[in-house]
């Protein structure tokens, strides 16, 4: 069933992809025999066929993940999004320390080791990557101190 649902969703995307290739995409002049539209038409149509084949003959029956696991993963994705949201405004050190603490705590670490780990990931990561390796990382609100 889950195969069918997924293949159905991909089918919708692939159909939209093909429809756009047949309607919207086109060059004002013909530069080459195929133009920008033929390739998407070919691969999009093949993708539609593959999805149809999967819907007719699905393979996996059920989705082997409990509600609890899915909830854990949803929390994980939420944490990642929060990290992405805070990454630039707060800067690498603070956002990384907060994220590392939250995630390692969530995965079962105790407060003290998690805190130690988080601070060393944030500060150590910044020193290593920005100061030694000269990679581009955001300084954020700590800008005037760094």
């Amino acid at each position, binding site marked *: 069933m889950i195969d069918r649902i997924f293949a159905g969703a991909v089918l919708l995307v692939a159909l939209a992809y093909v429809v756009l290739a047949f309607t919207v995409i086109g060059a004002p002049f013909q*530069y080459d*025999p*195929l133009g920008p539209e033929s390739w998407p038409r070919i691969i999009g149509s093949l993708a539609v066929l593959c999805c149809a084949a999967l819907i007719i003959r699905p393979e996996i029956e059920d989705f082997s993940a409990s509600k609890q696991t899915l909830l854990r*993963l949803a929390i994980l994705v939420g944490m990642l999004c929060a*990290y992405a949201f805070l990454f630039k405004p707060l800067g690498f050190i603070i956002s990384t320390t907060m994220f590392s603490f939250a995630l390692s705590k969530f995965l079962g670490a105790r407060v003290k080791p998690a805190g130690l780990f988080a601070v060393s990931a944030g500060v150590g*990561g910044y020193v290593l990557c920005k100061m030694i390796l000269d990679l*581009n990382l955001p300084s954020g609100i700590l800008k005037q101190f760094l």
Partner: protein
Amino acid sequence: MDTIINGLGAGFAVAFDPFNLMLVLVGCFAGTLIGALPGLGPINGVAILLPIAYGLGLPAESAIILLAGIYYGAEYGGRISSILLNVPGDAGAVFTTLDGNPMAKKGEAGRALSLSALASFFGGTFAVILMSLFGPLLASYAVTFSPSDYVALMVFAFASLASLVGSNAVKTLLAALLGLMLASIGIDANTGVARYTFGIPDILAGIDFLVVVIGLFGMAELIHLVEQQVSGKMKALKIDKSFVSWADMVNVKWAIVRSSFIGFFIGILPGTGASVASAVAYGTEKRISDNNGTFGKGDPRGLAAPEAANNAAAGGAMVPMLTLGIPGSGTTAILLGAFLLFNITPGPAMFTQHPEVAWGLIASMYIGNVALLIINLPLVGIFARMLTIPQKYLTPLIAVLAFIGVYSVVSNPHDLYMIIGLGVMGWLLRKLDFPLAPVILGFVLGGLFEDNLRRALSISAGDWSILVNSPDSIVLYGLAIIVALVPVFLRKKRAKV
């Protein structure tokens, strides 16, 4: 022959440059570490560290030497978690657990680790030697390929992908098509027409290769790790004082030679890397040598075979990538993308246009294999300690590395959301038994495939028969049909027996 000797000479001059030599060692060491971490394999390691290597601003040959070191270093390191933990780092190391872990349980962990290090060394070195012999040959032949021949080559690549990778050909094909579709987003270079950009300026130049790689192989792996997280500690077996003996080496010598051959040639086939190679090598060895039913119970030959094969496959997979521009495995697809980031297009012309990169890489692999053998024999204890790094610290670290990588290269906060989204998609695909390597192969090859098709039809003014006009392309289509039909025949044969 002259070109090979001259090329190797020039290559070693590049590889023995002190800075590059250091990068070989750093790459091998980091690769072994990553390979030894349970759950992380070569493809995740290269994916996570690629943007950081790129962000360092190294010259092209140095960055490639570093990344390649991580690649085959991780193939080496994968055996450590397979043997001591019974947890393979990736699909290529699964068969190492079958005899490696029982040996460790019998109190022969030291023997298993040293034996497999030697087997890996032979497999890896064998592959580099064949690569330096056949690579330039293949490249000089492929220089004459016309665009229509390239189209045939791509068809062959995708046919072998669909037939040999994954359990379900339709799913593998769909995965490759998704990669091709992702690659078609952005401005069409030939006409300047925007495709599937929906007016979003960020994706006019196409979706960044680094973002796709980090999303599909870094973030998806992270989500997978959290899903699989086992409560309680995994117990790693202790390394004892036992060591490989001369009699062991004599015992496994044919297993290593056979498996190196198998590994190298399977590695060359597009899309099929270490996982298929080690499976075939183990199966073959079991059929030939397993007279007393000792395979699976700690037979040294059953350990040496997959280890020699997966390291030989790692080298074999580099051959089509370097000479034809068609990667032989998921990880080499990422390496191909790395070449493109440096504005070097791997392919037949690379050996003449960028000899320092092509030969420097090959020479560095000779050095790397020796270095890996040396660091893997006495230092194996250090790597084994990595096994006990708890997941609760490893997991956040992967996310932080992925974020550093994407931000330091692309510097666009939106791409951070993009990798999370692609990570969820990659996790879902994996969960539904879609192989991920074809997605990245499709993504990397998409532009090349389309360009060659359009160039071929421009030459013929729209006549499609140009695609089957040369003997080379007809042979390639023939091979594609054979590769596509082989599994069907095998299945029928198995059904009869």
